[in-house]
């Protein structure tokens, strides 16, 4: 194989962008079928209560409304939605039924599905479904939950759904040796993915063929198909999950939610094509929340800042039910609490706590963002206590290259022992310090300049990516200029069509524009899995490389057969196999396509290839974020003067896509750290029901974000040498900004232990330090 032009590594503009920028994409709401009817999910307005009755008569009397389903109508199919991943023991007792049966447990819990000829009538109908519910007190905070006075799930006997201890080494002995210890309690606030495109589905049941088609799938379509088929009692092959354009997932979209059963089910029961699309308020209460966690963390060190041990207790607010991503968030927080540092002795008590709020699940960097905030903040506190420079403390404790691979032990109950696979952690950290000119900023830190307090903060992270079930690819060549590539990896907007074509083009030596990429649907490849945990490219991309290799091998074999030459005498280049010595072409793609057109079955077989890539071991990317902030002394508003993120992401397939991913992740991290929060009142009502109250970062909010991608240690665990890049950019942002705020306000002695750092909260931090001390 000897490609004419190298595609991998080139900054190709995304081929998807033109249709998106022209408004020519096809998202769920753009997808129409003849005779489509509309579904609206009627949801609980109460956080906690016992259902007495649900009266649907008035709804059914609305002109245009032709069906209303409650749990009683669909009980036969509507079993509890199981945990897909992150199977932490205990969570199985807290699963959600697609429609509430006897108790509602959060504002937004589905109670009924209304079907009507148009969306207007469906919403009118939903307004008239009358649920008689005996209100109960709501469990709103982690502290409420741990008191167990009110139980979210009465029959479980406790709100503490899961509890275990993750450990390596002997933390208690390490603390006994420590010159210095400090313990603090940190809090990370509830926020989440909030993609701009809300969730939606279109489902059609074909009575004649017994096939169910569902449009709007993403993330893990193959898993969701299997589960949907099981719940409906259908053969898996009778169900197609089809991916359209997707306006963002960030982890939360594409999991199996109640609607993922309800919409296909009502399509089947009524024989009608059904469309459901969330409105924004619905999206904000129905889709997985994330991040809400408390952590009591203690660090033990020598006087010189060498960390000897870390021990803590995590309490994750899971919301009202265990969702498909199970205990991933607390489990990964516990796994990554020690971070990229050489900390031999570590223990962490992990607690998953149920509350009467929207269920939690994974969001970009699940558990990592939170854990990095807790640890990095505590490291800065330690540095200040010991009179050490925060950068020097980190450099002294980062895992060194000669310690790689670094055993982190078995920290996750549902996974095997793991190891950080490689890298030069100190180098990447020093690179970030240079990029931000850390030394040059020494003069502004903690200073009031033109009415603003300046501060610099940093956070280091390490994260896993890839692995999980195998991913599949299929290649079909119709002509040298018409090549179809199918992948089981789904795209939520990451640019698979561009990057996967680049990978294949290099393998088969044909131009990337000739390759069309079809992704994320169960119809393209016989088997597949999906995209999450930084595995779209690591797993899906590797399968694409494999299918290219398989295709080339088939052509070489055919050439050997036709020519009688040994493989060593043959070479493949630019879609043809030729004799190395004579340069004569023996067989070409063009020629095989011609033979196929004439009906040659052998040629047709040669022009198709299937492959998969399996790897159960994760690869680990790592890096640093450093922020320079300025806080207005009078209004407490924070300006991000610079945020620099540096990451080792292994081999880069498309630098432009990687850069966009990292910048996007960093800005999403800034949104989560400074703007976004799901606020609940004492009754469990969510107060942020629109984008006027749930504040996403906009294009003008954070103009000064810089991303640098390094390739220090290509992964040895996949043929591309790639690592995930979707998550790294977000992971240390909370920690870096929190450290920068503490640095800026050091003269006040503020204690930064909670997010978000909204102006309201920064003003409170300052006010608290000015408050008169108790006598």
């Amino acid at each position, binding site marked *: 194989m000897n490609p004419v032009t190298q595609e991998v590594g080139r900054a190709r503009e995304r081929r998807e962008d033109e249709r998106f920028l022209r408004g020519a994409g096809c998202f769920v709401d753009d997808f129409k079928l003849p005779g489509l009817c509309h579904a609206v999910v009627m949801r609980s307005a109460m956080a906690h209560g016992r259902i007495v009755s649900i009266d649907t008569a008035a709804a059914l009397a609305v002109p245009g409304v032709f069906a209303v389903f409650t749990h009683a109508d669909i009980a036969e199919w509507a079993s509890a939605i199981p945990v897909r991943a992150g199977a932490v023991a205990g969570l199985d007792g807290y699963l959600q039924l697609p429609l509430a049966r006897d108790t509602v447990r959060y504002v937004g819990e589905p109670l009924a599905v209304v079907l009507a000829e148009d969306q207007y009538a469906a919403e009118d109908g939903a307004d008239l479904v009358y649920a008689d519910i005996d209100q109960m007190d709501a469990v709103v905070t982690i502290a409420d939950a741990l008191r167990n006075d009110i139980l979210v799930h009465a029959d479980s006997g406790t709100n503490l759904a899961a509890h275990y201890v993750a450990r390596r080494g002997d933390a208690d002995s390490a603390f006994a040796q420590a010159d210095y210890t400090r313990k603090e309690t940190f809090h990370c606030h509830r926020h989440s993915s909030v993609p701009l495109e809300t969730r939606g589905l279109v489902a059609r049941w074909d009575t004649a063929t017994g096939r169910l088609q569902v449009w709007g799938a993403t993330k893990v379509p193959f898993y969701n198909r299997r589960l949907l088929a099981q719940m409906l009692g259908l053969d898996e092959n009778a169900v197609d999950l089809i991916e359209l354009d997707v306006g963002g997932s960030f982890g939360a979209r594409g999991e199996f939610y109640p609607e993922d059963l309800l919409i296909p089910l009502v399509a089947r029961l009524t024989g009608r094509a059904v469309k459901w699309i969330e409105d924004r308020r619905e999206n904000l209460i129905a889709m997985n929340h994330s991040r809400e966690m408390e952590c009591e963390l203690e660090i033990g060190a020598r006087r010189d800042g060498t960390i000897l041990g870390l021990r803590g207790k995590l309490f994750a607010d899971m919301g009202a039910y265990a969702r498909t991503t199970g205990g991933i968030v607390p489990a990964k927080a516990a796994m990554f609490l020690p971070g990229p540092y050489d900390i031999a002795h570590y223990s962490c008590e992990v607690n998953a706590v149920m509350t009467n709020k929207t269920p939690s699940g994974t969001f970009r960097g699940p558990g990592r963002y939170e854990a990095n905030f807790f640890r990095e903040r505590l490291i800065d506190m330690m540095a200040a206590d010991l009179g050490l420079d925060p950068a020097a403390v980190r450099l002294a404790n980062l895992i060194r290259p000669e310690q790689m691979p670094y055993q982190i032990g078995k920290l996750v109950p549902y996974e095997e022992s793991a190891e950080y696979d490689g890298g030069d952690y100190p180098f990447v950290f020093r690179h970030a310090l240079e990029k931000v000119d850390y030394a040059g900023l020494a003069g502004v830190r903690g200073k009031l300049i033109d009415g603003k307090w300046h501060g610099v903060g940093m956070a280091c992270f390490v994260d896993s990516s890839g692995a999980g079930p195998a991913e599949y690819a299929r290649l079909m060549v119709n002509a040298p200029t018409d090549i179809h590539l199918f992948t089981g990896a789904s795209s939520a907007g990451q640019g698979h069509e561009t990057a996967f074509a680049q990978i294949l083009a290099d393998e088969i030596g044909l131009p990337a524009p000739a390759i069309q990429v079809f992704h994320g649907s169960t119809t393209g490849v016989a088997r597949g899995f999906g995209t999450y945990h930084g595995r779209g490219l690591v797993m899906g991309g590797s399968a694409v490389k494999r299918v290219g290799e398989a295709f080339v091998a088939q052509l070489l074999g055919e050439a050997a057969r036709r020519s009688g030459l040994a493989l060593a005498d043959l070479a493949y280049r630019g879609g043809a196999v030729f004799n190395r010595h004579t340069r004569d072409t023996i067989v070409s793609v063009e020629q095989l396509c011609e033979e196929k057109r004439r009906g040659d079955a052998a040629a047709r077989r040669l022009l198709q290839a299937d492959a998969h890539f399996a790897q159960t071991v994760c690869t680990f990317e790592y890096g640093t974020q450093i922020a320079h902030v300025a806080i207005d002394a009078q209004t407490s508003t924070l300006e991000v003067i610079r945020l620099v993120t540096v990451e080792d992401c292994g081999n880069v397939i498309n630098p432009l896509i990687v850069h966009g991913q990292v910048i996007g992740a960093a800005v999403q991290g800034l949104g989560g750290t400074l703007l976004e929060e799901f606020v609940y009142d004492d009754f469990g009502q969510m107060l942020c029901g629109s984008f006027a109250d749930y504040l996403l970062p906009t294009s003008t909010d954070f103009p000064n974000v810089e991303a640098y991608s390094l390739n220090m240690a290509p992964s040895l665990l996949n043929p591309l040498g790639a690592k995930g890049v979707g998550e790294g950019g977000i992971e240390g942002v909370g920690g870096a900004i929190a450290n920068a705020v503490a640095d800026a306000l050091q003269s006040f002695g503020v204690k930064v232990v909670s997010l978000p750092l909204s*102006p309201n909260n920064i003003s409170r931090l300052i006010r608290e330090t000015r408050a008169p001390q108790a006598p």
Partner: protein
Amino acid sequence: MKPPVFDYFSPASVEEALTLLGEHGEGAKLLAGGQSLMPALNFRLAAPAVLIDLNPIGALAGVHVASDGRLVAGAMTRHRWFETSALIQQRLPLVQHAMASVAHVAIRNRGTIGGSLCHADPAAEWPALCLACDAEMVLQSGTGLRYVKAGDFSRGLFTTALGGAEILVQVIFPAWPETRRWGFQELARRRGDFALVGVACLLDVDTGGTCTDVRIVVFGATDTPVLLREAASELTGRAPTDHHVCSAARCARGGIDCRSDHHASAEYRSELVQALTSRAIAQALARGNDVRDG
């Protein structure tokens, strides 16, 4: 996100609109720019039986200068018009400047002065600007016209003096004296968001540098905009120094019992009242005397 059923009327004149309002009474709602009402309908927070669309009534849009120099604005004039008008820049530079803080351009293209005043959101700029400028509302009903000063028009949270059978048709702004200077400060979570707190300040300063008339209005902090007479009195009759500005700002903070919500506590809003009042006064004092050149 679909509104409930309503009947829709598009009258050609104010008189016709008043007749419709009389016929449908309580169940009718007037539709101006729709930037608050349409989301409320789509969220099903409002369910009027009838919408009376004022957009077709050409006579309600546009601004003219009366013979006595007062500026008469039609209630259906869009925010964006005020923002881009040379006339407003010359005659009411405070208003022209403040328009940039009203949401985003797309919203300013549709939203109207009258709609904003009648909606009476506590964080909205228009009620505060009208109070600062001592504007007068012209309310029309079947029985004729009624004139209400801005200070009497705001009655509370989303509540005004507008009667059920009345339509706000015009807003009249007194002419500015040559000696007037202005300051405007607003703080929102992001550009275009509702103000946590805003301050508009007008100072009439004589040639000796003495403030002869001072109006300071704070909005977003309480249910309605507030005219701060006591804070103003710290400056009136004086050529203000930094000391006076600080006293006025402290006085502003002390004179307001701020509201609290999940974006800003009462304590934080109080801090903002002081900070932004101080900045608005300083901004007004710093401007050249001849503000009319922009």
